[in-house]
């Protein structure tokens, strides 16, 4: 409605884009997103771009660009962007020339090129629609579809980027790399690299360190050959170390290794590494062994890296070795050094250090020969057989696999070999030596067995990585042969692909049932099985059996947490229970909420006693995640009565917020339709409130912003349809709930404004008494909400916007109040504001706002009780009193841009108006008193401007003087009646002034002259011919 009114007013001057018009269109888009507005906007933009911009036009392109950007980003162009367009050029002046907007529009119409609307859309060219098809072609990747619409002018965005859009370049690059990669793959078939789907050691590290701890005293026994400065061959034994001390000591050794290396004491470095790996043969305080392994292998990794890098740099003269170097690229000196290392290591007396150190520098074999690694790996694997202690051996194997995966992931054989050897020696676990040791250290067998799991899990993970199915079957069979050892079974289930395990779920259940329970709790096995089933579905026909079997175990092990907790942190029943849930969830069909509800109820029942949930937040969180992947229909989700009580179990603030956040993310992603469902609303409000309440003084800005975004996402999904009043009351409630997050408040104000405009649309522009009261209520809502915002510019723009909305709804006094409030807070605008953490001058923002404001003032009728042009005067007074930056022409520039407004106001018919609102044109009806009032104001302004120009001349800031003079000249030319001799003389003087110092761009001057000549051809503008003759172009010598 408003739009059609506007359309009739459309005045496209070929030479000056009607910014106000675009501006209003943008606001319309903000609120309606209607297609016809888009089209209209497109049309203007297209015609605008087509014509060469005129004298004042250099800013236009920027303006247009921002519109396009805003719309293209598919954001409703927010006010910040829209603000840019305000007006630079609304016509008028001192003695303003009379304008016939309609005629001016008609004049430029025929020249506007017809635009086919079919599939053309001006925003289209900047959408990167297809880059893949152009393999590696760098050119024109951003303007892929612009070529299809030949009428489309050069898009400023795409020409700016000119095909070097960084994103599409990446895309293109990755496409062009792909064939190269497949090529190299072909060349070296087995040379496959470990992909990102392989969980790296680094992620296991922390887990192991956290899990295998001890309170017993540890000792480090270092025998540092001939450590200079100390007694020769000193044996240092550090006793009574706490676990932390131990870790610190090891870290110290790591440091001294690096230092020794840096100071070229290679032998000392090697000694440190040997001593460290020797520590791994010490199994006293066995509970700590896995952690010790982690700490010490860190040192070995460091050492391996140092040696490799050193030899690598020896060959990098004159240019660095490529990553895919061969033996031939390595020079003799480097080879000799490398060989020396290997000979030195080969003569290490003890087995374990020799194995570890050689494994650590395994990669260096690349310097010596092609087959080195593939010969060494099996040899080292076999040598591990010499390690008597099964735990030490298992971890040595894990290390070898780790190095192997890193250096030569394609050599699968030695991985398998390691596992088979491990199985072959597994009977040692029950051997006499081990048993004696356990008795001595007072460690129970089950606890001892769990010490193996990191090593075995790792080995199996390496083996299972991209392994063919038959191999896995073979592994499974081998484990079976070993009497279904629970430990191995558990590792197999954890390491192998979930699909593999899921497909044999029944088999596994059989094996779990068969295996002897000594030492390894069965529910843990079910937990591991559950992990796999959570990721992959078992065959349809077996699901029921699996469920039954699993539940049987559940009922048997009701409260085992106390006795098992000490063994293993994952042993406690929470984890197992959650895993069972996974089993359950994975094969119930995906929307049966009754079952899920039961499971949730059960979990709540079991987790509540003793606040057991406190230890199980990660698991409970994964339950939520799982549920969210299945239930994307939130009405179903929230109708599960146990869901919210389940959420209540997250009582730690950080976890709670994280959970809420993940729910919100899913909601925003999957909730497509607007909703008014009270169940959803209540639950979501609850969740959002939780997020909101987590905000405190210490919350980071980023965190606040993301929370605010999520909440805004929710608010935008709420719609009560035609029940506007309820929508408003929802906004009232939301305002009370989310008062701490400013972006949310801003969104609420927008929502309410939108509501008012929607009401206006429904009533087709004329409000009934009831709707009038309602839109006033909306205005009141905005009016009392805006002051609570801290950002002055959001306040300003919201005042203006709400004022415009009030005006559009014929709420004159409300509009007045908004605009007055905006003028009232102008003096408070600080001179610098923080933008993205940097202090910036606020001047440009302020100028934009004022221009925007001026554009609106054209249609605001004067208040009967206040004087003529009350608001304009008020604004100008504020501008005068404002403490502008020193050396800035901002104030004068405001004056210059106020002139077009005054000119527009003196017209008989205004450029635009608001339906059902009488602007000053009707109020005063061209009253001479009103006109003279305007003229007086203009005179004052021009006087001020001229004074300022003079002052600038004195200060020698001639460049600024020139620019200012030129802009005033432009305004006079566009809006002034140059038939008036005085005015025309002033224009000529200004022209000369700005050309006096030669700061004017000749191009612009020439174009301006052409424009004037063009104008002069029109019948009522012939007087311009005289003027143009008096405007001399400065000739450059």
């Amino acid at each position, binding site marked *: 409605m408003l739009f059609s009114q506007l359309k009739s007013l459309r005045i496209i001057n070929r030479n000056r884009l009607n910014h106000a018009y675009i501006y209003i269109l943008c606001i319309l888009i903000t609120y309606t997103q209607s297609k016809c507005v888009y089209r209209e906007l497109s049309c203007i933009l297209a015609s605008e771009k087509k014509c060469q911009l005129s004298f004042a036009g250099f800013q236009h392109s920027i303006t247009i660009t921002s519109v396009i950007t805003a719309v293209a980003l598919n954001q409703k162009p927010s006010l910040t962007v829209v603000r840019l367009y305000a007006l630079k050029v609304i016509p008028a002046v001192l003695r303003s020339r009379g304008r016939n907007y309609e005629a001016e529009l008609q004049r430029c119409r025929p020249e506007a090129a017809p635009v086919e609307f079919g599939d053309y859309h001006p925003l289209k060219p900047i959408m990167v629609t297809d880059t893949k098809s152009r393999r590696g072609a760098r050119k024109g990747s951003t303007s892929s579809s612009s070529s299809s619409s030949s009428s489309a002018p050069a898009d400023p965005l795409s020409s700016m980027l000119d095909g070097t859009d960084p994103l599409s370049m990446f895309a293109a690059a990755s496409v062009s790399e792909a064939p190269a990669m497949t090529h190299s793959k072909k060349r070296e078939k087995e040379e496959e690299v470990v992909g990102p789907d392989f969980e790296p050691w680094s992620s296991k590290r922390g887990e192991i360190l956290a899990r295998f701890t001890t309170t017993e005293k540890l000792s480090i026994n270092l025998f540092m050959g001939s450590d200079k400065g100390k007694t020769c061959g000193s044996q240092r034994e550090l006793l009574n170390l706490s676990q932390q001390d131990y870790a610190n000591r090891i870290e110290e050794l790591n440091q001294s290794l690096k230092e020794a290396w840096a100071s070229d004491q290679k032998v000392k470095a090697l000694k440190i590494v040997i001593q460290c790996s020797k520590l791994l043969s010490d199994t006293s305080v066995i509970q700590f062994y896995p952690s010790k392994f982690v700490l010490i292998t860190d040192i070995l990794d460091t050492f391996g890296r140092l040696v490799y890098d050193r030899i690598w740099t020896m060959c990098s003269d004159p240019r660095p070795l490529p990553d895919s170097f061969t033996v031939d690229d390595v020079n003799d000196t480097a080879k000799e050094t490398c060989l020396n290392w290997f000979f030195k290591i080969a003569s290490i007396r003890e087995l374990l250090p020799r194995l570890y150190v050689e494994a650590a520098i395994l990669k260096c074999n690349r310097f010596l020969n092609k087959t080195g690694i593939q010969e060494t790996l099996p040899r080292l694997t076999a*040598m591990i057989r010499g390690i008597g*202690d099964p735990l030490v051996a298992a971890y040595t194997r894990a290390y070898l696999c780790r190095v192997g995966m890193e250096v030569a992931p394609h050599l699968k054989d030695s991985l398998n070999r390691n596992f088979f050897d491990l199985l072959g020696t597994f009977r040692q676990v029950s051997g*006499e030596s081990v048993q004696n040791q356990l008795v001595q250290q007072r460690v129970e067998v089950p606890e001892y067995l769990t010490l193996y799991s990191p090593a075995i899990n790792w080995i199996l993970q390496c083996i299972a990585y991209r392994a063919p199915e038959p191999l896995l079957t073979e592994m499974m069979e081998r484990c079976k042969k070993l009497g279904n050892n629970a430990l191995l079974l558990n590792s197999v289930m954890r390491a192998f692909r979930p699909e593999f395990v899921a497909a044999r779920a029944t088999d596994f259940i059989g094996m779990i049932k068969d295996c002897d329970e000594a030492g390894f709790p069965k529910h843990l096995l079910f937990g591991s099985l559950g992990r796999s089933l959570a990721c992959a579905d078992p065959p349809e026909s077996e699901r029921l059996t699996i469920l039954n079997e699993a539940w049987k175990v559940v009922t048997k092990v009701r409260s085992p947490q106390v006795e098992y907790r000490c063994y293993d942190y994952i042993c406690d029943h929470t984890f197992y229970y959650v895993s069972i849930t996974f089993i359950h969830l994975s094969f119930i069909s995906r929307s049966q909420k009754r079952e899920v509800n039961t499971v949730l109820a059960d979990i709540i029942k079991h987790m509540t006693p003793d606040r057991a949930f406190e230890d199980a937040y990660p698991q409970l969180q994964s339950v939520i995640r799982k549920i969210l992947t299945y239930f994307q229909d939130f009405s179903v989700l929230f109708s599960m009565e146990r869901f919210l009580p389940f959420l209540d179990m997250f009582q730690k603030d950080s976890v709670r917020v994280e959970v809420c956040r993940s729910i919100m993310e899913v909601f925003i992603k999957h909730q497509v339709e607007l909703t008014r469902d009270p169940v959803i609303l209540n639950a979501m409000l609850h969740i959002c409130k939780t997020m909101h309440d987590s905000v405190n003084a210490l919350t980071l800005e980023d965190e606040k912003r993301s929370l605010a975004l999520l909440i805004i996402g929710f608010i935008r999904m709420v719609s009560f349809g035609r029940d506007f009043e309820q929508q408003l009351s929802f906004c009232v409630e939301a305002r009370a709930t989310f008062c701490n997050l400013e972006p949310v408040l801003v969104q609420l104000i927008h929502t309410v404004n939108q509501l008012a405009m929607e009401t206006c649309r429904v009533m087709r522009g004329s409000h009934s008494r009831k709707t009038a009261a309602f839109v006033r209520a909306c205005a009141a809502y905005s009016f009392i909400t805006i002051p609570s915002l801290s950002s002055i510019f959001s306040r300003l723009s919201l005042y203006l916007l709400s004022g415009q909305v009030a005006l559009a709804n014929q709420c004159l006094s409300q509009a007045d109040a908004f605009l007055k409030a905006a003028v009232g807070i102008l003096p408070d605008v600080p001179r610098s504001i923080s933008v993205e953490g940097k202090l910036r001058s606020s001047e440009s923002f302020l100028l934009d706002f004022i221009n925007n404001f001026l554009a609106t003032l054209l249609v605001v009728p004067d208040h009967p009780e206040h004087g003529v042009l009350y608001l304009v005067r008020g604004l100008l007074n504020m501008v005068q009193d404002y403490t502008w930056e020193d050396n800035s022409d901002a104030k004068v520039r405001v004056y210059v841009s106020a002139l077009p407004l005054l000119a527009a106001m003196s017209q008989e018919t205004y450029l635009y108006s608001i339906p059902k609102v009488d602007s000053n044109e009707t109020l005063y009806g061209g009253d001479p008193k009103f006109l003279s009032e305007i003229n007086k104001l203009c005179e004052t302004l021009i006087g001020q401007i001229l004074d300022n120009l003079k002052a600038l001349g004195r200060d020698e800031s001639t460049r600024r003087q020139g620019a200012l003079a030129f802009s005033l000249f432009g305004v006079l030319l566009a809006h002034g009646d140059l038939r008036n001799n005085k005015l025309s003389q002033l224009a000529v003087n200004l022209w000369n002034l700005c050309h006096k110092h030669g700061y004017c761009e000749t191009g612009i001057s020439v174009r301006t002259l052409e424009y004037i000549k063009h104008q002069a051809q029109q019948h009522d503008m012939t007087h311009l011919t005289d003027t143009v003759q008096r405007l001399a172009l400065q000739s450059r010598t």
Partner: protein
Amino acid sequence: MSVTLDIRLKRANKVYHEGEVVAGVILLVCKEALQHHGISLSMEGLVNLQLSSKSVGVFEAFYNSVKPIQLISSNIEVAKAGKVPAGKTEIPFEFPLITKGNKVLYETYHGVFVNIQYTLRCDMKRSLLAKDLSRNCEFIVHCQPQKAKVVPTPVNFTITPDTLQNIRERSSLPKFLIRGHLDATNCVISQPLTGEVVVENSDVAIKSIELQLVRVETCGCAEGYARDATEIQNIQIAEGDVCHGLAIPIYMVFPRLFTCPTLETTNFKVEFEVNIVIVLHDDHLITENFPLKLCRV
């Protein structure tokens, strides 16, 4: 005034064979021009024999009655008396590695009683006031590869309490059965010694299994000859109570310089042996000895 004198060989590994040319540069670095009375370079190959005090008394051992055997010797004048300019000066040289008469160049070997060593020595004579400068540089000679093909002959062994010699009380011995094999006892020096050992059973836990590489050096002299066996290195191949019935690899790299192809001359002999040493938890020590014949191919 600092001067550094250095000999740099062309080959990074410094290994040469008979008939080849030992090439390199003499490197002189000095800050100012240097006056000298001539630079000479000599090459020498020597066998040093030392009698152990065990075989001949302390006095003779100290006196070292065995004269060194010269294998090769040559001398060249690199530069006549004159001046070396300031900065870095490189003077290239070449020595053909050719013996006179029917002498053989033995392979470099660093032992206890026998040492076979080849050195380059550079001397710079200077005026009375400044000290003469000299620099030694050892290079390594590998003897010509053996022509005959080495056919590896595996050697099996079984160790039980009954196979042992040199024991005091056979009755106190625990029961054990250890089997295994060496892939060869005539070994190529550049390749590792390999084999397998299996602990079939043992009443007492194994503490450690080690490979002991032993050199046996014999020096002949007027008074007879002295034969001494000393350890070169000891490599552990098993630690702790290893799994029974599982083959544990025997693997040992022959260390460079400390081993050479088995050598037998009129004046001295260098031979090698390996001991497989099994230490039981009650500290019983069981050793099985295998003479090795090393060669280069």
